[in-house]
């Protein structure tokens, strides 16, 4: 089995769905002739034509709105945000129009809105964001956030096939950093709504997603080797809807929970997960639920600043060591 990068796995998923289903088409800025800012869609227009790989004006609201209209008519649009930071320009269209369409009007809107997210790449305040918390609060949307090449492929395919709107977040730090052997000749599909145990452990659970899955795994290795703490890592994979069963299962197994996310702290996903554990597994806790997150500031550009603001492997090691001793 040949190894592929996260980005190549995503490309494979998109390509296979375009081949499989002629209702699938793509629209976004510079995705056609240029092949996308990160080359995710390179070669697509040549293979599938300008009608199915559409270069659009710089108009995120129009991209999402037009995708919604096409989806109402039975199409399966995949809309690219060149950087996910620009999804805020389509916030109204996503939250007011798209997310409510099935509920208020019985209108199916099977669209995927995907784009590169995340920091650790010196991208500055507007090319590094993690927008999941802004949409977590909107009934009617699903949010997926793969951490592995396999899930990059499996979740894009599942998102395209889902009958409801899905925001697909792809961490640009992972694009070419991780490689994985994927099975050939076998359909790779990751079910939406299912977390994955990325590492088994018994003393403490780290619940996380995206790039910090890899930082948590690195921390877990160090904790095991240096301190004899056995760490379980739960990769959420889908943020909306959350996999409550997997969260509760890991709490019951280790009785201690550290939640890690790259997004800022206040109003972040960790608060919601904490509340759910409180409601569903309070009696199983042997310590406080603790959070390692970004600081509550816009993400700055200078390496020294970005490294300080974002959660690092060392932060996770320290917090987990503190919690293990609690």
């Amino acid at each position, binding site marked *: 089995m040949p190894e592929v990068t996260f980005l190549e796995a995503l490309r494979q998923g998109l390509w296979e769905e375009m081949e499989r289903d002629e209702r699938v*088409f793509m629209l976004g800025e510079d995705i056609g002739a240029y092949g996308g800012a990160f080359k995710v869609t390179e070669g697509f227009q040549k293979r599938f034509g300008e*009608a199915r790989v*559409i270069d*659009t*004006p710089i*108009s*995120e*609201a*129009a*991209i*999402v*709105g*037009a*995708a*919604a*209209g*096409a*989806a*109402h*008519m*039975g*199409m399966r*649009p995949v809309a690219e945000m060149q950087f996910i930071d620009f999804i805020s320009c389509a916030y*109204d*269209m996503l939250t*007011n*129009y798209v997310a*409510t369409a*099935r*509920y*208020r*009007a*019985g*209108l*199916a809107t099977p669209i995927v809105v995907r784009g590169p997210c995340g920091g650790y790449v010196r991208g500055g305040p507007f090319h590094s964001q993690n927008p999941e918390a802004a949409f977590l609060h909107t*009934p*009617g949307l*699903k949010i997926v956030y793969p951490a592995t090449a396999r899930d990059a492929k499996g979740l894009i395919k599942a998102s395209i096939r*889902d*009958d*409801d709107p899905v925001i697909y977040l792809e961490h640009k730090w992972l694009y070419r950093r991780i490689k994985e052997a994927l099975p050939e000749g076998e359909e790779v599909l990751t079910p939406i709504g299912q977390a994955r145990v990325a590492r088994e452990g018994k003393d403490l659970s780290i619940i996380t997603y995206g790039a910090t899955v890899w930082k948590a795994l690195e921390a877990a290795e160090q904790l095991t080797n240096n301190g004899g703490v056995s760490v379980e890592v739960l990769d959420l994979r889908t943020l909306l*809807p959350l996999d409550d069963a997997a969260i509760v299962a890991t709490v019951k197994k280790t009785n201690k929970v550290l939640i890690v996310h790259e997004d800022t702290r206040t109003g972040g996903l960790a608060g919601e997960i904490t509340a759910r554990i409180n*409601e569903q597994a309070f009696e199983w806790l042997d310590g406080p639920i603790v959070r390692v997150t970004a600081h509550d500031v816009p993400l700055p550009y200078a390496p020294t600043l970005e490294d300080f603001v974002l959660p690092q492997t060392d932060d996770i090691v320290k917090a987990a060591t503190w919690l293990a001793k609690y």
Partner: protein
Amino acid sequence: MSLHPVPATGPETPAIPAELERPQLLEMYRYLRLTRTLEERLVALYRQSKVIGGLYRSLGQEGESVASAYALERGRHRDILSPLIRNLGSMLVMGAKPVEILRQYMAKAAGPTRGREMNVHFNDLELGFLGQISHLGDMVPVMAGITLTFKLRGGARVGLVYVGDGATSTGAFHEGLNFAAVQRCPLVLIGEYNHWAYSTPPQKQFAVHDLADKAKGYGIPAVTVDGNDVLAVYAATKHAVARARRGKGVHFIEVKTYRRKGHAEHDDQHYQPPEELERWARENDPVDRYVKQLVENDWAEEAELAEIDRSVRDEVDHATDACVNDALPPGDSALPGVFANPPAAEPLWFRGL
């Protein structure tokens, strides 16, 4: 189409414009009267507190609504329009039923959105209308997507979307129109210059004189029409729709009209000059003008118009009787249908205590 036998047109009768025929003129009249009568019934129900939310009148704008919609191909899986709160007439033309409108306003369980949405915010994509959401301008990008699909599939279907003068200030309007223009979508925009965006007059909304001036910025043709001249709006829309159907892309039609009621029924309109309101009512009511045109040109007899009025009243009476005592939806029917999967949200734990 007419329910009534009509005498053959005499040699002295002026020709009917825009390739229309007498039965169509009468059918348009029926939709105009139905719009006005149905809204008057809604006012009565509003005053009896049976309309749950706000009531939005289209008084003075029935002409452009009915005439523009009438220029589309109607029937299942034909053209699609996206109406605003003041386009009740357009929805009726496309096949929305008075009983659906009444149920929707009264939040009835049996209404088209089962009590989830308000007023004319509902849709029937098969019949060809896609209800708006409250965020103005948003339907322009959505209709761009619908008509993009028409184009991709190579059919000859056309879309039409209404925008108020105020909505042309929104980003969604600009983005959607520009997108549709670039893609040469088969889309017709009706820009309704009705002089009031809630309480805001045009001079505080935009610096152009006519909405049609804005079209230059998108590289599309535009025309300004007397919005209270039913046949002029019909002819302009027919032309734009035919052009779109031939693959010539987006067309903008500005209709100059006047909103004669407040933003909604609660609004006392104190900001609208009384003499202006009186002048539009007296001299420029679209239904009065249309009737005058029909009768003076011998295209219709007053008696047959009166007969239509009577049958419309009967229809609205029957529709009201059919639903006014209907039940509201049960509370827990709020939970299903956010997603296809899972099919329903769970009731929260404290409801089980």
